[in-house]
């Protein structure tokens, strides 16, 4: 008989969440045709109260059997998600860990600290002698903090010197502005870690404008197509990227659907590693259709 799956994700307020929305929609379209007896309810929310409202509505008015959720702010969402679970629904949590263990049936996780640590490892490797670097952070929210801590932990004990870090709000325009000012402020920068490809794109334009493309390199994160193409082309300014694919939402939806439809028992944790994308393996990550 009919099965309804609710999918709740944060609104497309920047590149990565844009990708999440895109891949979720893709997966839903694909699975709806494969399984005509599965209905999907899809909602994206700009903040936690709205996201809680969305899942309340899914339960109260759409009778969902399972919920796939990428919580914008996991701490704020925990108790609301727990209610869904307590109501007997199958719950899949994506990317962000809830603040109570064992709420979800299935956890498809990205690895935020790993994203920072991977980038740090690369910096250590290419700048063994140390050097000045700057960091362009996202928004002051926990994910950003995890990535940042992962990175700082990774470069601990090296001679890498973080000159400054500022928030660029996961936004190209802010990436451009902050980088412009860092370039004004610091005559010697060897490396830039932006932890996000949207920010990188802005930073790159600022570096080009200043004509300092050859003095430094930029490492972002998430695997946006525009950056991947540069990496694949061997661009010296963006030698590598760190994957953190928004497609993890699709994986989560697929696993959940499989569980409900074919009674495949899925549960536990699926950690999607954050890996270093280089010129050599970039082709693996390229996807011409992705808007992200």
């Amino acid at each position, binding site marked *: 008989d009919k099965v309804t799956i609710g999918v709740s994700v944060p609104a497309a307020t920047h590149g990565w969440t844009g990708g999440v*929305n895109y891949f979720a929609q893709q997966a839903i379209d694909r699975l709806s045709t494969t399984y005509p007896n599965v209905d999907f309810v899809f*909602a994206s929310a*700009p903040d936690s109260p709205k996201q809680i409202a969305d899942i*309340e509505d899914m339960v*109260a*008015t*759409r009778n969902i059997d399972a919920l796939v959720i990428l919580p914008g702010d996991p*701490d*704020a969402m925990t108790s609301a998600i727990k209610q869904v679970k307590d109501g007997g629904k199958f719950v899949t949590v994506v990317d962000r860990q809830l603040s109570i263990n064992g709420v979800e049936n299935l956890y498809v996780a990205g690895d935020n600290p790993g994203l920072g640590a991977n980038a740090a490892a690369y910096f250590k490797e290419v700048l063994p002698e140390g050097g000045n670097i700057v960091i362009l952070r996202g928004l*002051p929210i926990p994910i950003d903090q995890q990535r940042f801590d992962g990175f700082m932990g990774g470069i601990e004990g090296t001679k890498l010197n973080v000159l400054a870090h500022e928030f660029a709000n996961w936004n190209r325009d802010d990436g451009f502005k902050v980088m412009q000012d860092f370039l004004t402020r610091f005559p010697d920068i060897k490396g830039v870690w932006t932890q996000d490809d949207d920010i990188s794109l802005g930073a790159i334009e600022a570096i080009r404008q200043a004509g300092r493309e050859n003095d430094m390199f930029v490492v972002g994160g998430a695997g946006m197509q525009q950056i991947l193409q540069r990496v694949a082309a061997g661009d010296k300014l963006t030698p590598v990227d760190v994957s953190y694919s928004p497609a993890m939402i699709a994986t989560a939806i697929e696993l959940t659907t499989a569980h409900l439809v074919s009674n495949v028992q899925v549960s536990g944790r699926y950690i999607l590693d954050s890996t270093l994308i280089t010129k050599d393996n970039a082709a693996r990550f390229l996807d011409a259709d992705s808007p992200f």
Partner: protein
Amino acid sequence: MTASAPETAGKPARGFRIDLKTAGPLLALALLVLLGITLNENFFTYNNLTNVLARSSFIGIIAIGATFVITAGGLDLSVGSMAAVIAGVMIMVMNWLIPSLGIGWSVVLAGMLAGILLGGVAGVFNGMMITRGRIEAFIVTLGTMGIFRSLVTFLANGGTLSLNFQVADVYRPVYYDGLLGVPYPIIVFAVVAIAGEIVMRRTTFGRHCAAIGSNEQVARYSSINVDNVRLLTYILQGVLVGVAVLLYVPRLGSASSTTGVLWELEAIAGVIIGGTMLKGGHGRVWGTVVGVVILGLIGNILNLQSLISPYLNGAFQGVIIILAVLLQRGRRNG
């Protein structure tokens, strides 16, 4: 934006005209409910409607405060950030008091008290800058919006402030339980709304707010202490933000730099949809309640259907907001 003065005669203003203007928001609300019912059989269930009302209660309570501020010709852009900082401080206070007070209602009550106090203090600050400092309300509250937002980010160290789980469990019922099946948030919202309506219509304070918003000079010449009344509107707004946060914290059990983002816009929109004039002079608390509920229902209805791409939610919202106001204004020309 009002039509020319001589349009209405002195006398027969009562019958037809006022009714239509009054009914405007209600009509929009009715149409929206009808839409909901046609879209989904579960829409008009007790569960769904209490869900919507309960979650509209934060914005609703804040918007009732905003009704007074706006009626008196002011504006408060800082309410969203203020809510965040109050939530953050409340959580910190409660966590911090656990060792001395233990897990239980006393901690929660202390936290509540702190929240309301802090709201009042924030209101005093806004109000003093505006009335004593004579700085445009838009600027003051834009400034404090940034300041409060920064403060909560700073307190949370860029992350999230979470309430101790055991305390959260004690506190939780304040959002999720209720009296005779009516959730507490709805009860509080209703009480604040009724009190607000009475204060607006049946007290000198409410009357003076309207007078000040309509013509400050006239109010002053009627020996109304304009500065004090205006200050009071900001304090009331602050306290009501505090009350809203009391209901918000048990729902999310946490606060972060994203808490309450854009609430100010939603609150002001609710007020204006409800028929209060942005330029001041005329306020309707019950209108605000209707306005806020309309906004809440829009989100709910969007979740009831799968026809509109989620990307276009904002467009749907925008169209409904304009239509809701068109319903009450459009007739003027007719």
